[in-house]
């Protein structure tokens, strides 16, 4: 075996290193046996069961389960939600990786922790927070339009406070705030003034307008609440609809691209970009011609991991979806319904698609890891 020491025992004495540097052969094979049994039981058997159960009732049942209109709708919705989450998180991930690896600024480690936050949070809570904002009992009362002014108000107020704190901090640590800081402060103050004056007026007039059609000539209300009216005519439903599912999916898969891209961009370094800049290349030229080609494997790595999680997300989506068959059911939710109705063959047929996706993801992941380790040493 490898690792056997050489050049020992000229006098026939047992080599002392041998006992110290490797386990006896039987221990090695025992450990290998235990580990392979453990991995097979917990990884291979569950995977095998999926395909076994999916094809148990024959190939016709399998394809029938996949081509049902409800199943097709679930597949379509899963693809839509995953696509939205993927696009959103790619833009974010690239921006965050550029920010973190190309600049030095205070608060970077806090930002990194915040990016990782969704990994630490239960997916069920990821769904719950959106129900609390957009649900019927939430801030927006189920109507995002009711959310606009309060959200604006909070963001600017908290922003202004942060701006002032940052200015005071910078005054003491770096230098007196420059004109840019004063302009920003003035803009925030102006925004708060406008929000408390004209915007509030517009907002309440909107509500008054909304009240009018609800009252008939004899003074009776036609519709119970403004919320009902808005929901029926003017607003985009979020919870129990595609936007909510996409939001929850994006929340859960939020860190993937950024997290995989950051170490790769870190190890690639910025010398090439600086060289391009000194030769007169603009920011976007540097980004598209140098950065993206350099980190494409890292980006792809993040994308496939993000995609696998987005398509398979269950907990978060389960909270916001409402489980309407053929409309708000994604593939994992469709599996749940079929399984609870004892339609095991159909449930495992859909599950086999997702398990296939997981296998493809693992294969691509292994290939990319191989390429990445060649490209940047031990980046991942």
């Amino acid at each position, binding site marked *: 075996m490898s690792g056997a020491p050489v050049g020992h025992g000229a006098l026939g004495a047992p080599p002392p290193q041998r006992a110290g*540097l490797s386990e006896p052969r039987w221990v090695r094979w025992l450990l290998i046996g235990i580990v392979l049994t453990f991995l097979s039981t917990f990884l291979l058997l569950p995977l095998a069961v999926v395909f076994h159960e999916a094809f148990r009732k024959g190939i016709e049942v399998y394809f029938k389960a996949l081509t049902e209109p409800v199943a097709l709708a679930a597949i379509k919705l899963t693809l839509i939600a995953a696509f939205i989450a993927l696009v959103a998180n790619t*833009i974010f991930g690239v921006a965050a990786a550029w920010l973190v690896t190309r600049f030095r600024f205070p608060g970077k480690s806090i930002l990194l922790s915040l990016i990782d936050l969704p990994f630490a949070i239960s997916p069920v809570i990821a769904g719950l927070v959106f129900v609390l904002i957009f649900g019927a009992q939430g801030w927006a009362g189920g109507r995002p339009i009711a959310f606009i002014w309060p959200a604006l108000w909070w963001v600017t107020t908290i922003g202004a406070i942060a701006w002032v704190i940052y200015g005071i901090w910078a005054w003491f640590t770096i230098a007196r705030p420059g004109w840019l800081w004063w302009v920003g402060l003035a803009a925030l103050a102006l925004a708060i003034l406008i929000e408390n004056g004209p915007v509030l007026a517009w907002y309440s007039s909107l509500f008054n307008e909304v009240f009018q059609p609800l009252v008939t000539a004899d003074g009776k209300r036609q519709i119970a609440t403004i919320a009902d009216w808005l929901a029926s005519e003017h607003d985009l439903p979020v919870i129990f609809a595609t936007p909510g599912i996409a939001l929850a999916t994006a929340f859960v898969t939020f860190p993937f691209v950024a997290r995989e891209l950051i170490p790769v961009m870190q190890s690639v370094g910025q010398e090439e970009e600086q060289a391009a800049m000194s030769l007169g290349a603009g920011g976007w030229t540097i980004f598209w011609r140098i950065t993206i080609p350099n980190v494409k494997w890292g980006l792809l790595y993040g994308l496939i991991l993000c995609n696998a999680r987005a398509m398979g997300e269950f907990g978060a989506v389960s909270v916001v979806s409402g489980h309407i068959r053929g409309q708000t059911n994604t593939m*994992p939710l469709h599996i749940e319904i079929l399984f609870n109705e004892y339609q095991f063959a159909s449930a495992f047929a859909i599950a086999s698609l997702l398990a296939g996706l997981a296998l493809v993801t693992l294969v691509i992941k292994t290939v990319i890891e191989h390429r990445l380790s060649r490209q940047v040493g031990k980046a991942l």
Partner: protein
Amino acid sequence: MSTSIPIHRRWRSRLGILPGFGLSLGITVTWLSVLVLIPLAALFIHASGLGLSGLWAKLSTPRVIHAFQVTFGVSLVAAVVNLVFGLLTAWVLVRYRFPGRRFFDAIVDLPFALPTAVAGISLTALFAPNGWIGGWLDPSGLVLGVRPTDQALWQWYDYLRFEVNYTQFGIGVALTFIGLPFVIRTVQPVLEEISKDTEEAAACLGANRWQIIFRVILPELLPAIITGFALAFARAIGEYGSVVFISGSKYLQTEIVPHLIIIKLEEYDYQGATALGAAMLVVSFIMLLTVNFLQRWAERRAGDRP
């Protein structure tokens, strides 16, 4: 001299010379706030609306307390199982050569890639009394070949039978599955980095194999082991998809906190769901801080070594 330079100039030189700071900072902070921070703040603001006594009233019911006990207890056991087998697996994958090693190394990440709902139904099918593993745990299939018809035999049967589905053991199986890669993937790179020289030096000084493992190798791995353990535990606490099928969610027996949140939402008890969610979020924050601290510790220890 230095005070005469405007702040934005001084900033630029400290930041780095490449363009795009404002744009990337803007995108990052906006996305982060809209998608993550404001929603999480919403949960806390909703929870604070309940008041401390209201929160306590929602959290101190026997059902909630039991769910917390089950969630934390079983997650801890699953994390310990993962610790032991993860360490063993990392050791075997790094140190030994055997056929299929690369395949098993790649398949370790399966729980990350396999959707939790798929894992849940396949584990349930696997451990059902007529499943591939469940059949072996059911002595009627193993010993008697058929389920007993005689009343006296039934008693023995019930005594010997070991059920996984719809028990806390089943929850443990699911949580072990989803936490499996964490310890392996944190320990593996550290183990690969440990040079043989240290071990040879220890052996030359007369240490035997056990002494080398416990005095030289394990202390080196300790930060990675604890980090992996904490990651697996944190993941297990929040897990929902793979558990809900195998646990059956029996009242006061196999209910876990994430599922209880969903039950509360389905009952339109938004306050109860908010209280539970806020409590879980606080736990998640504590876990995140712990893991961050542990990772820094590990990096510092790794940095100390030549």
